[in-house]
């Protein structure tokens, strides 16, 4: 059986799933608002955590956080399950669908047959909504796709029980109750302050703008330390984390700037619009980094263009973001 589900394509999977699920239950929300309320923006560089033997750089918070924070801060009740048994995981999913309740799932993308082959890596923090089942076929609203898709039960089981880093362990979640009156403003303020804290206030060298500077410093040394071939692989990996599907462009800076515009409206404070515009130009700067970096990857870096030049762009981003998040934090205080 299938329930009606209003599928809206989004840039990022988890904020898209969160916004679509809430909208389905009557609380209309944009993806950008879900991303902002979920305090999804981050920078972290963790060279000791390896993804396919490459250092982890992340522009967003850990999977599951956006949904958890949005629902928590708005006082929305959710039901969550994780499973060790595959059959029970699928039975519970079927039970919810039989009641007509759409369900959010964490899955790996490697086993999802509808994903473009070129994007099928072992990445386990993907989120999607299952909203119906016919025979052994599930109807899925995968927010990064333009249309709804279908997936055979056998493939979905594999995706739900993908192994490796961030293994989803059959995690599923759904909305169980939305309070009748919701006040967005305090939740927005709280979420903005959280992002500012992580970006500029936490005195941990691998996080926020400190993390950007740390990565910039490391990057300068990559060619000498790792050799040209590995240095380029490292660089390509950073560009993928920043720009590949799911980020909305500019390492999530644009989607967060879109959220700040909505926040300005909700809070009735035009000053947030200025911050948003500044963040847009910082996002463009990150895009400059990706363009210059990709030239290196192709071996087409212009004469005199070195990893040090790339680091300079990153430091520029870090400097501008440091100022921006201090200013943004100050705004939330009055």
């Amino acid at each position, binding site marked *: 059986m299938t329930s009606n589900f209003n599928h809206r*394509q*989004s*840039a990022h999977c988890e904020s898209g799933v969160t916004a679509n699920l809430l909208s389905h239950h009557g609380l209309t929300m944009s*993806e*950008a608002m879900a991303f902002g309320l979920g305090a999804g923006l981050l920078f972290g560089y963790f060279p000791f955590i390896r993804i*396919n033997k490459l250092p982890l750089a992340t522009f967003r918070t850990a999977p599951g956080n956006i949904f958890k924070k949005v629902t928590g801060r708005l006082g929305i009740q959710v039901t969550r399950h994780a499973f060790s048994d595959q059959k029970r995981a699928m039975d519970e999913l079927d039970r919810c669908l039989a009641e007509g309740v759409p369900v959010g799932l964490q899955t790996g993308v*490697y086993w999802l047959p509808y994903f*473009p*082959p*070129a*994007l*099928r*890596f*072992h990445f386990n923090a993907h989120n999607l909504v299952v909203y119906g089942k016919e025979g052994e076929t599930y109807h899925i609203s995968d927010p*990064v*796709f*333009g249309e709804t898709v279908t997936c055979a039960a056998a493939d979905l089981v594999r995706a739900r029980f993908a*192994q*490796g880093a961030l293994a989803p362990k059959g995690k599923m979640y759904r909305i169980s109750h939305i309070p009748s009156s919701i006040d967005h403003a305090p939740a927005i303020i709280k979420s903005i302050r959280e992002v500012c804290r992580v970006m500029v206030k936490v005195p941990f060298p691998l996080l926020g703008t400190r993390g950007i500077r740390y990565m910039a410093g490391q990057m300068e040394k990559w060619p000498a330390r790792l050799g040209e071939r590995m240095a*380029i*692989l490292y660089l*390509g*990996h950073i*560009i*993928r984390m920043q*720009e*590949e*599907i799911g*980020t*909305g*462009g*500019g390492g999530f800076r*644009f*989607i967060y*700037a*879109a959220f700040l*515009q909505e926040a300005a409206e909700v809070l009735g404070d035009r000053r947030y619009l200025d911050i*948003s*515009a500044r963040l*847009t130009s910082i*996002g*463009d700067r990150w*895009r400059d980094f*990706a*363009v210059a*970096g*990709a030239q290196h*990857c*192709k071996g087409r870096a212009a004469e005199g263009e070195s990893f040090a030049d790339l680091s300079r762009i990153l430091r520029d981003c870090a400097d501008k973001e440091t100022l921006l998040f201090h200013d943004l934090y100050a705004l939330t205080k009055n």
Partner: protein
Amino acid sequence: MLKDEVPQDKELFGDQREVCYAVDEDGRYVLAESSGWDPANIANNQAWEAISREIADILAQIRAGEMSPLAYHMAANQMDEKLLAEYAGLFRWQVRRHLRPGPFSKINRKTRERYGSLFSLTAEELGEIPDEPGPAMLKAMKR
């Protein structure tokens, strides 16, 4: 990024499009469709080339009798020993053993089927390697 500047460099998604955030003439954010962006495409291709290179190395080692065909299926599915062991429900040392030609030829039927069902291969196909190297996924794309 302005809405008019949203890149349309088709490569990774086939006919699919992703959405990204861009500002319109009035400075308002809108969702804009994109068929891809070259820097991201270049970085993605680079990742696949690295995988292809690893597979080619492994195929050469298999032909030289240094590794078993399982090593090919592992690499073609972007796995390492640890991940393969988790998927197959075996210990890492078992997988490591099976990557050697000798022990591989003595794997019992049940374990062979276990590997086979993981890679959607019959027990016989598990012992075969292709002439042309390439990640399993990208071959599917060319089909």
